[in-house]
């Protein structure tokens, strides 16, 4: 028994060659990783896929295959496509919420501008009213003075 066999060759009960293509991505200490991938994709398909890729991309490919296999094990009907659906729904909801919030901002800004314009008008109205009152008072006292003969 060769203790140095990778998880794939152990599972497949075969000799693990020195140049075993699966060995770097399915280490012996994580047997479940290969079991999942083999169950969904099959060792043969995984081998062919990795062989077609340049070496520096194989690790990421193996990881993505494992992720997809895990999704499929957890959700045998939709696999990782279920997650895509969920994300699309989240995007749709977020876009709707964002549009609604931006509309609220537009309304609030519009209300704020209108409110800022009105206080100035009210102040000048009050000033005019006060001046009018003062004028009236002045006129009354003047006429009183005049009638009292104060002014010749």
């Amino acid at each position, binding site marked *: 028994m060769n203790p140095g066999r990778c998880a794939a060759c152990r599972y497949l009960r075969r000799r693990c060659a020195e140049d075993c293509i699966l060995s770097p991505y399915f280490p012996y200490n994580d047997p479940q990783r290969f079991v999942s991938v083999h*169950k*969904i*994709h*099959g060792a*043969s*398909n995984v081998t062919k*896929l990795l062989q*077609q*890729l340049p070496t520096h*991309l194989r690790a*990421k*490919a193996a*990881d*993505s*295959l494992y*992720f*997809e296999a*895990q*999704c*499929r094990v*957890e959700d*045998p*009907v*939709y*696999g*990782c*496509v*279920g*997650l*895509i*659906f*969920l*994300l*699309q*729904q*989240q*995007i*749709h*909801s*977020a*876009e709707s*919420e*964002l549009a609604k*919030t*931006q509309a*609220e*901002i537009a309304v*609030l*800004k519009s*209300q*704020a501008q209108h*409110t800022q314009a009105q206080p100035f008008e009210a102040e000048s109205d009050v000033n005019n009213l006060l001046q009018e009152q003062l004028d009236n008072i002045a006129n009354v006292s003047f006429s009183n003075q005049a009638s009292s003969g104060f002014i010749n």
Partner: protein
Amino acid sequence: MGGSSPCASCKLLRRRCAKDCIFAPYFPSDDPHKFAIVHKVFGASNVSKMLQELPVHQRPDAVSSLVYEANARVRDPVYGCVGAISYLQNQVSQLQMQLAVAQAEILGIQMQQEPAMPTQIEQDDKSFPLATNYNLDNISQSLNFASSSNVIQDPALKRESLWT
């Protein structure tokens, strides 16, 4: 000479298409590419086992999702569907940030207008937690897919109707 023509699966596998062939309802003979691509990525044997483990009413959706995944893998042999997931996750994050900024702006405006009144921002949860049952956080950290230039950016992903 009677009998219907073999399904796409049995044609490709060059075998007799039995009356109870598990593939026949989902891989008709007029669409050979559909089975070819699923067989290439998953293998006929694995697909057969997967379908057998499902109740009949769930098999059409399972086949559709397998076809979708297989197509994604053929288009992007490195990332497959995971590339699409990474892209959509980024979109969700960006939208969440934009929403947070917009909500903060509303708060600011309201505080300017009525500083004495308590804030009336809607407190219902607008966060969109990602599907935790897929353990995305751990996968994303270990895979670091977001920066890949191979990420599929299919416009169809932005909207629903994945099924043809």
